[in-house]
């Protein structure tokens, strides 16, 4: 039985399309006067954040609240964790409080997997970013943004995937859980992904990922339907991965001149937070081709969809592992 969302690689194409379609429907709730649905009334969602994150946490919080769930925010700073409590003891505490879902952000890769498979808790585990491993809801909201922008139509592309769209992910691939989840999910949805980074920032083994790897941004730009710029994660860098910031910005940063070489329909994405002047110039960040703000809004819809599909029924409709029932059975 599926119950968790740990990795974007666990999602089948049908799972992913179901999540995007559900999010498309739930996005309409934001346009109403009463932005609330009663669906998860009486359920408790715990945001367990061992690492600083404002936008992901408030996004999950807003999503859970719009579905009427009770939300408990638990951040490691100033909690028992800073006094040395282990993940296990924290988990047992949450279980004792009756958490139906635990949304976990952790600085160590694999922490959500541990939480989900250890038997410490009975609820669903949603990975909100673990170390340099994965960030599946970010990949989903990126796919959602791409589908709306590139596949589009009046209904936002409901029922369709990203077949044949070319997505280029640029920057600090090595430290990026967004890139890892993105590669898995976007290829599952039929997109062709190219990673562009300095050789030092391409992870070992990326050659076996279902994507191309290039070191030349200018060569890739003209054949990209979307370019996803990643932040250079200084806080995770204990070594010199490139000579100077200026050189990095020159070779791998996106400025107006480079943006002009992209096809007219192509969009620029950024998962945030942005380092203006580093991987992206203000000119690009503020242009209407940049979807950064849209991605934040879409994040709430995607997280509502994930929480709804994981928690509302007797069993989850998506996630880790097992195949989903077909759409026709679901809709009767």
């Amino acid at each position: 039985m599926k119950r968790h969302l740990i990795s974007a690689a666990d999602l089948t194409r049908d799972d992913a399309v179901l999540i995007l379609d559900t999010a498309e429907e739930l996005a309409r709730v934001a346009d109403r006067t009463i932005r609330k649905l009663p669906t998860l009334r009486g359920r408790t969602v715990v945001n367990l954040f061992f690492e600083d994150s404002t936008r992901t946490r408030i996004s999950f919080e807003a999503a859970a609240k719009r579905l009427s769930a009770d939300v408990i925010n638990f951040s490691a700073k100033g909690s028992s964790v800073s006094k040395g409590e282990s993940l296990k003891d924290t988990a047992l505490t949450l279980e004792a409080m009756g958490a139906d879902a635990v949304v976990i952000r952790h600085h160590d890769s694999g922490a959500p997997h541990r939480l989900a498979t250890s038997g410490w808790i009975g609820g669903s585990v949603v990975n909100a970013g673990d170390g340099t491993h994965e960030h599946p809801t970010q990949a989903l909201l990126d796919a959602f943004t791409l589908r709306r922008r590139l596949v589009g139509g009046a209904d936002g592309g409901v029922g369709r995937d990203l077949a044949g769209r070319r997505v280029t992910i640029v920057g600090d691939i090595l430290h990026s859980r967004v890139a890892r989840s993105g590669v898995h999910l976007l290829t599952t949805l039929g997109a062709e992904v190219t990673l562009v980074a300095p050789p030092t920032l391409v992870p070992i083994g990326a050659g076996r990922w279902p994507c191309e790897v290039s070191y030349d941004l200018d060569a890739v730009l003209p054949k990209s339907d979307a370019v996803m710029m990643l932040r250079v994660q200084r806080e995770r860098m204990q070594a010199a991965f490139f000579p100077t910031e200026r050189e990095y910005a020159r070779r791998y940063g996106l400025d107006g001149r480079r943006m002009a070489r992209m096809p007219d329909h192509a969009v620029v994405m950024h998962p945030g937070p942005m380092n203006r002047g580093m991987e992206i110039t203000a000119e690009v960040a503020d242009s209407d081709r940049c979807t950064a703000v849209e991605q934040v809004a879409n994040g709430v819809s995607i997280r509502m969809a994930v929480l709804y599909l994981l928690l509302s029924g007797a069993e989850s409709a998506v996630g880790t592992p097992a195949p989903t029932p077909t759409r026709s059975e679901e809709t009767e």
Partner: protein
Amino acid sequence: MNGDNSTDDDNTGETAPARPVLEAPDIARVLTRIAHEIVERAKGADDVVLLGIPTRGTHLARRLGAKLEEITGRPLPVGSLDITMYRDDLRMRPARALARTEIPAEGIDGRLVVLVDDVLFSGRTIRAALDALNDIGRPRAVQLAVLVDRGHRELPIRADYVGKNLPTSLRETVKVRLTEEDGRDGVLLGVRGTTPAGER
């Protein structure tokens, strides 16, 4: 489609062949009559908004909207209202996919909303629809039009416009087939097979 009687669509384990109770021309006639009744009761249907409950209620609402336009000579707003998020049995089944909610641009505040569904059974779908409406706006009044009323209400709910009253036993199944969804029109009455209890 309508939540309370989803088993009506379930073909598995059926023993006796389903018997047609309404054919395509009957459905057309019934919808024409309901359209006239709406105009009569709403005194011209000036402020009527039709909201179909997916999936087949949405198609019926569109057809009803076309008939009303023929009668009154004016187009009137038609939309759909998905009630999945408001169901009372969500936790008893696997998570469900959502259907489309499309509220006409005019909104529903101060208007006469006519909910349209294919089969009225326990009334739980309509209960959920009323809750959903409550979150969207404040209609002047809400009425209910159904193609078939098969009885066995579990809530104090009744329809204002009924295509056909069909007394059934709980062992029977009522299946509405519409061209838009199923390739042909018809209402079929069957007998449920020996599906083990709790399977659906």
